[in-house]
């Protein structure tokens, strides 16, 4: 995305200014700080799966590393980018052991419980991988997934034959993990029992790993890398827009390259709620998480449609119809989600109003309206995210 780094820098500066302002409330300050952190943070990709599913090989293929050589001795690890190779091990007794240079068999002899690695590989720029190593037991994996959920933006689930255990584990996995998840069959064929969409995966990307067929594996890895890059870019773009909205809501104007002047006001028909409310019921969070996941996945589907087959003069109307469909579903669902309305009384209204707006935009038609409707969706996503994070 050209211009994105400059944009990021500008927005971060504006956020820092807002954070430092005298009138800023503590809540606003922490929101600014977390937004800045978020904008500069690497994309966190988790690699999951049963033992022997091909997790290490996948990590190597994506990062250009050769960790698989260390075999099963490798513990759960985090792999990020750094100017020079560095490693830090957390040993079973809780002590830490840092060392210059890459991973060595000597370090592994201490049987570390957790490893943090930094490598200068270019593939690792802007990324941080989490490789989750567990036993094959449900009792071991389920808590590990819950732990990992808060450390991962995109989940990759490696599987060789999608066993009932895997299906069960995945169904029980936290929503945060399932929001952006790709299932990666590592064998030569997609397991017959696996229906990616039904299981809640956004995509299914098969990769034949090096030991089976070198040529097609490269293509498979390339395809997965591309997908990860696009997802990361889209997420970054949405984060930028959300930050922009956040700034505008607090009266800071930053140049919005995509928004024609004068429309920003109509995009923001409602002020954000500032007052911290009573604690939120877990049922409400679940309902909101589902709704949020719907927004993400339908936005994703829309993005693909835009890339693939939405073009020509009909494009705007088509886009408006699809967007209106999303808003309609959201407002219909919101009407029936009782806990949601109890926890955030303004949220159903926001969703209803967004639907009203999108309906009128659809009737007006035109590219400008389509762009506006798309921004409205991004804004709504932000509104939901703020509530989920609270």
């Amino acid at each position, binding site marked *: 995305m050209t211009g994105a780094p400059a944009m990021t820098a500008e927005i971060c500066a504006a956020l820092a200014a807002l954070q430092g302002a005298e009138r800023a409330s503590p809540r606003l300050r922490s929101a600014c700080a977390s937004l800045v952190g978020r904008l500069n943070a690497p994309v966190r990709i988790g690699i999951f799966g049963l033992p022997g599913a091909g997790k290490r090989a996948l990590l190597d293929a994506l990062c250009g590393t050769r960790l698989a050589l260390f075999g099963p001795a490798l513990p759960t690890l985090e792999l990020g980018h750094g100017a020079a190779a560095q490693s830090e091990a957390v040993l079973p007794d809780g002590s830490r052991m840092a060392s210059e240079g890459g991973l060595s068999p000597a370090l592994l002899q201490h049987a570390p419980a957790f490893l943090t690695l930094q490598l200068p590989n270019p593939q690792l720029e802007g990324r941080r991988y989490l490789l989750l190593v567990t036993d094959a037991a449900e009792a071991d994996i389920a808590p590990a997934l819950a732990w990992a959920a808060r450390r991962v933006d995109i989940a990759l689930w490696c599987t060789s034959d999608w066993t009932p255990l895997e299906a069960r584990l995945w169904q029980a996995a936290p929503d945060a993990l399932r929001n952006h998840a790709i299932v990666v069959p590592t064998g030569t064929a997609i397991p017959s029992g696996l229906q990616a969409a039904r299981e809640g995966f956004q995509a299914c990307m098969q990769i034949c790993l090096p030991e089976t067929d070198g040529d097609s594996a490269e293509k498979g890895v390339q395809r997965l890398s591309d997908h990860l890059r696009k997802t990361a870019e889209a997420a970054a773009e949405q984060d930028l827009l959300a930050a922009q909205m956040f700034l505008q809501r607090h009266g800071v104007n930053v140049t919005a390259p995509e928004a024609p002047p004068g429309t920003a006001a109509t995009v923001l028909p409602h002020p954000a709620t500032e007052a911290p409310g009573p604690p939120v019921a877990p049922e409400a969070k679940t309902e909101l998480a589902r709704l949020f996941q719907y927004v993400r996945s339908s936005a994703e589907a829309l993005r693909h449609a835009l890339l693939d087959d939405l073009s020509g003069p009909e494009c705007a109307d088509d886009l408006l119809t699809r967007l209106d469909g999303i808003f309609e579903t959201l407002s219909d669902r919101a009407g029936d989600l009782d806990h949601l309305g109890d926890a955030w009384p303004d949220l159903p209204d926001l969703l209803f109003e967004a639907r*009203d707006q999108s*309906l009128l935009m659809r009737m007006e038609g035109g590219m400008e309206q389509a762009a506006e409707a798309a921004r409205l969706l991004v804004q709504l996503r932000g509104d939901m995210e703020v509530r989920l994070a609270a």
Partner: protein
Amino acid sequence: MTIAETSDPTEPLDTTLPSPFHGLEGLAARLAAMDHKLSELCGAEARPVSLQARKLRKQIREFEPGITFIGQVKAGKTTLVNALVGRADLLPADVNPWTSVVTSLHLSPTLEEDDRRSSFRFFSNEEWGALIRQGGRVGELASRAGAESELEKVRRQLEEMREKSKARLGRKFQLLLGQTHDYNTFDRELIERYVCLGDDFWDEPEGDTAAFGTGRERGRFADITRSADLWFSAPDTPVNLCIQDTPGVNDTFMIREQITINALRNTRLCVMVLSAQQALSAVDLGLIRLISNLRSRHIIIFVNRIDELNDPVREVPEIRDSIQTTLKRFHGPTDVEILFGSGHWANHAVSGSVDRLGGASAQALLDWSSAHLDQSLAQHHPVEIIWTMSGLPALGQAISERIAQDSGAQLEESVGTALQNLRAGLSAAAARQPAERIAAGACRMSRDQIAARFARIEAQALTTLQEAMTAVHRTFASRTENARKTFQGRASDSLLKHLDLYGDGEVWTYDPAGLRMLLRSAYNVFVHGAGKACGTAQETAANDIAALIGEAFGTTGTGLEAPPLPPAPAPVSLGQTIALDLRGSWWTRFWRRRRSRKSLSDEFARLIHEETVPIVDALRRDCADPYVESLRDALSGFIRAQRDLVTGLAFGEGTPQPVPGGAPVPHTPQATLRSAP
């Protein structure tokens, strides 16, 4: 083929044509079976059971689904309706466009042929006064849009109309308003006196009060008649039917639009009649607006007068496409069934005068037939072939299917549930005692205890409903208010953008369909919420009552089903014309008169506000409130019916007081004009 000559054209002809409604036979048979089961319960010893069974039988007997025909003046609605009821000349088709009578034809399979009734109702004093004073809805709109000269014109025309009515009806005029004329018969002349207004009428000398039966009597009361109801025998029609013929909607004063809206509000099935020639050329936005507020399954579009097309075989598919495109473009319902045919052909088939079709019409019929005739149909009598080609059997079939699936199914469900609950009560009471001793009492609770429990259940159910409804009402109020604001915001933005781009020389418009869609979706959310609230309250009440029955009679597992919810009225008031719809000269002048940007957008905001308030009020008054009322009645009725049943079974006697409410009656009585147009 012989030409059937009849002395009275309102008599049915001796024809072998099958009833277009034979598709209702299945429903009729199922209702008859239910009625039979109920008749057995009517003989039950326990009086409350027999009472309620009788009440349910009455519900079946009075079931009369309605079909409302709407369309433009020249679409041929009346010809079509005449053909559909098998009486080619029943209603006068040459009605002067001034009249605004809604004619309801009540077809009854049980009435004898010479057993007919009719009733004609005049406008009330208030309705008439409002019409003259305000100039109808057009006057209202004109005054809002600031079109004083138009308003004056409308007033003058209406004044003229009133003078003529006065002259025609003499001093009796004021006395007649608000009255109803009932007759134990009807014939063509009687109908014409109320419904038909001859073109030459106003030129006749004043004060001529000739006796009935002369041409002078034609249309005597026509301009003050609001509705006409005719009851007559239709032995081939499996169930009672009410076919409503409404005046066309394209009148100068929009009086008839209001009348049509009122007729539509209480109907569950609407046939929109278009003329084949108009369907391709003119778009009737008023009609599209009206049907947009109904569900697609409640609408059938019938394109009439295909006999007047030069080449129906080629043109009909074009017309179908054109209608679908138009509906889509103007945000109407898009999956509506569209049928084609000719009331003219049908009437000639019905009256056996096919040889008088006329050359062009006969040629069109030949072309149409040769394209659609199949082997099995070709075996039939020519009259039957023409009847089929006229599209009327297909229309009748479509109507029958909708009724069977909609109001018919609703009745079956509600009577079925009530029947099941009756039996459940009976078996609970009989569980410990031989059947003949039910009346002696097997109850473990006292009468007072039972009464108190039921009172508590009812109070609790109504409170639950009330509480849930508070939130639903609040959502509705905020959604309609937001809809107005959102619409006003976007329309004003669009206006300002327009001014930036084109200045104020160009006239700007903004589709008011958006406002309607927002309000409609607010209403749908309301209906959904209200239904859900009532459903929950009913469910709880049903469980409580089942538990009470179990306690009282010492049985377990008494299944008690909550009755189906009454249907919500369609928000047809949203279809009424508002100032924003008028793209004519007023709008242009409204536009031109305002000079500055500021005053334009302020005026526009004010206009939207003034337009929205009455629409929302009408929506609340005519649709939302009555719906809530009907839900509350249904809930109370269900609980009280159970109370009477349980009390009666336990203590072996009749109900202490007459049952108010009872199960909801699915068919609402004939439409009335609630507010003066």
